[in-house]
């Protein structure tokens, strides 16, 4: 017996998965098997629920029946309360998966006379455990005993015995405790339960409340030490182990289009990296949301799933507005590729936002997530917290290989680069939209402030919102710098005119050459004609001369014939 026990401890601590989303990740597997765990926190922070979920998950997912001993709520109340979380306790009790026992202590009904112990509690607990073969036990909240039983000495001794007994029973137990003024629990339960202590917290800062969970200690095991936000919703608890993420996500070489051809061109002609983080920042009304909408539409066209968090506009308003620049988002919403998630940043705390983001992303499984805009989170002096939250979101999305696009509103009075410096290190591709005020106009300019891992364009392009979406104009860089708006138009007109005159000049030159060629050709023709006539004259002359020679010869012959010369035959030869 002893040997196997020591072997087990050497092997490593055994853990019982709680089944609570995220909790098993931060504790590296769950609660210590066969040991009691203290869950403490102030009123309404979710202690009972933590316990219930531990039991229900244990019973339904890990085939470990459990006993819930309630000192506060009656069985009926408890059953009703957790129906809203999707737990059917009645059914589980019927199937002997869970045993519920309500322990009521009424101080006024109890008179103490002499020695006693809490053997009754032990017997009831043992009965319940043995009856269903329980592996898990929850005692909620055992501190109520302190109010019911006057003799603290006996009570404390008995509690010590109880926790010892639970260990001997080998059940994995949760003991809940109300948080004290300066101690973890009001009655100092942490003194007895020292293997694992979990603290739940429900804090309100600036009128928004956030639930947090922290593993205060966990003997014999490493665990996440941070405060993790957690949610209670219709699926029970979910804890977010965000900061446990490291910088070791897989990177992709794949590129995806931004939805704006010329913007893609500025990014090596290919667009963003998949899984990267894009920030679009700029002053008010400069078109950040339009860029985001373009990206969303392009992704939907590729058949990807897009999750769009809007913190300023309602989805309908956003869709209507985008329609005015020719981006139709509604069909994609209907197809289920695009999902809007609209909440005011002040609706709940940062941690809660983070938690909600996690949850929705895990459910929707998007390829692309858009947060529009991120800086509305900064209420008051919380910049640091916002930064940590964004870092967590970025890390989380990266680990999921999701491309993220954030928009950020920068105020006009500080330089654009500075205002976002807080998160710039998190961003892979940073597009900056800026107003260019020139010659009595306010125009939009876009440039790529940085883009990790690609040779991006360094130009400021003019950014125009048309009825068929965002258009980027090739930058006009003249002698007097980049020109935008009507200045650019004017400059373009000027240049066009210049080009036109050049064209005319060329035409003129062409015509001149033509004319010259024609003149030359006519001269050549005249000479040729002269030559031709001379030539024909000469030919004629030669002909007559030859005829003359022939005639002479003939005459000689005829003369010889008439003289009856014999040598007539030789005569021509001689003549030759």
């Amino acid at each position, binding site marked *: 017996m002893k040997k196997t026990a020591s072997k087990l401890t050497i092997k490593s601590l055994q853990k019982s998965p709680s089944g609570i989303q995220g909790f098993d990740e931060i504790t590296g597997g769950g609660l210590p098997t066969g040991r009691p765990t203290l869950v403490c926190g102030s009123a309404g922070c979710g202690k009972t629920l933590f316990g219930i979920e531990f039991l229900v998950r244990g019973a339904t997912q890990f085939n470990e029946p459990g006993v819930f001993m309630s000192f506060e709520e009656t069985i009926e109340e408890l059953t009703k309360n957790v129906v809203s979380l999707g737990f059917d306790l009645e059914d589980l009790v019927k199937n002997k998966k869970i045993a519920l026992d309500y322990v009521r202590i009424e101080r006024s009904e109890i008179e*103490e*006379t002499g020695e006693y112990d809490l*053997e009754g509690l032990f017997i009831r607990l043992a009965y319940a455990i043995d009856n269903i073969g329980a592996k898990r036990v929850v005692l909620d909240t055992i501190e109520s005993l302190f109010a019911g039983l006057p003799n603290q000495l006996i009570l404390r001794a008995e509690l010590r015995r109880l926790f010892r007994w639970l260990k001997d029973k080998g059940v994995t137990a949760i003991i809940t405790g109300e948080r004290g003024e300066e101690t973890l629990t009001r009655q100092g339960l942490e003194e007895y339960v020292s293997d694992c202590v979990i603290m739940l917290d429900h804090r309100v800062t600036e009128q928004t409340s956030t639930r947090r969970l922290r593993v205060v200690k966990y003997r014999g095991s490493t665990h996440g030490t941070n405060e993790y936000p957690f949610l209670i919703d219709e699926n029970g608890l979910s804890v977010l182990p965000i900061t446990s993420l490291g910088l070791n996500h897989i990177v992709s070489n794949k590129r995806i289009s931004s939805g704006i051809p010329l913007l893609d061109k500025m990014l090596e002609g290919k667009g963003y990296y998949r899984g990267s983080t894009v920030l679009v920042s700029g002053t008010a009304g400069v078109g950040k949301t339009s860029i985001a909408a373009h990206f969303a539409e392009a992704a939907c066209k590729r058949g990807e799933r897009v999750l769009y968090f809007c913190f300023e506009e309602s989805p309908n308003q956003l869709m209507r507005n985008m329609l005015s620049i020719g981006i139709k988002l509604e069909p994609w919403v209907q197809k289920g590729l695009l999902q809007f998630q609209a909440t005011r940043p002040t609706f709940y705390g940062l941690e809660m936002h983070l938690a909600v983001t996690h949850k929705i992303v895990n459910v929707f499984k998007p390829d692309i997530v858009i947060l529009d805009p991120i800086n509305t989170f900064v209420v008051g002096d919380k910049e640091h917290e916002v930064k940590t939250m964004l870092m967590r979101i970025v890390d989380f999305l990266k680990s999921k290989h999701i491309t993220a696009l954030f928009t950020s509103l920068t105020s006009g009075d500080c330089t654009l680069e500075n205002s976002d410096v807080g998160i710039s290190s998190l961003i892979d591709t940073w597009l900056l939209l800026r107003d260019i005020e020139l010659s009595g106009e306010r125009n939009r300019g876009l440039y790529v402030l940085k883009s990790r891992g690609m040779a991006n364009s360094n130009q400021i392009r003019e950014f125009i919102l048309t009825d068929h979406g965002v258009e980027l104009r090739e930058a006009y860089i003249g002698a007097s710098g980049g020109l935008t708006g009507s200045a650019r138009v004017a400059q373009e007109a000027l240049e066009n005119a210049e080009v036109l005159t050049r064209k005319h000049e060329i035409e003129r030159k062409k015509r001149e050459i033509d004319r010259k060629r024609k003149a030359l050709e006519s001269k050549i023709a005249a000479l040729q004609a002269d030559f031709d006539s001379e030539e024909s004259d000469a030919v004629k002359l030669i002909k007559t001369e030859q005829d003359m020679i022939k005639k002479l010869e003939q005459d000689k012959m005829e003369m010889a014939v008439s003289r009856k010369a014999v040598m007539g035959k030789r005569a021509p030869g001689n003549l030759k």
Partner: protein
Amino acid sequence: MIKNGKADKTTDEKWVLRLYVAGQSPKALTAFENLKKICQEQLKGKYSIEVIDLLKNPQLGAEDQILALPTLVRKLPVPVRKIIGDLSNTERVLVGLDLLPNS
């Protein structure tokens, strides 16, 4: 005074007492002895004591919300009263059983 008050209360009522114990522990034995003595003195002839051993019948513990042992439950007369401990402090037992008149 005491006798009058006691007599008024207990003339025609039947007392049903239930003593919860866990096995034959010293505390259980002491409690039973003490209870018998008190009953003999105060409620002669009109009481019944039922001893329930939770080790043998653990399911009975929940019915009367038993935590501490030994526990004495006064089932009748109503209201139900509970006295925990080995009943060694007689005066407290009498108070608990409502056998002492409020002065």
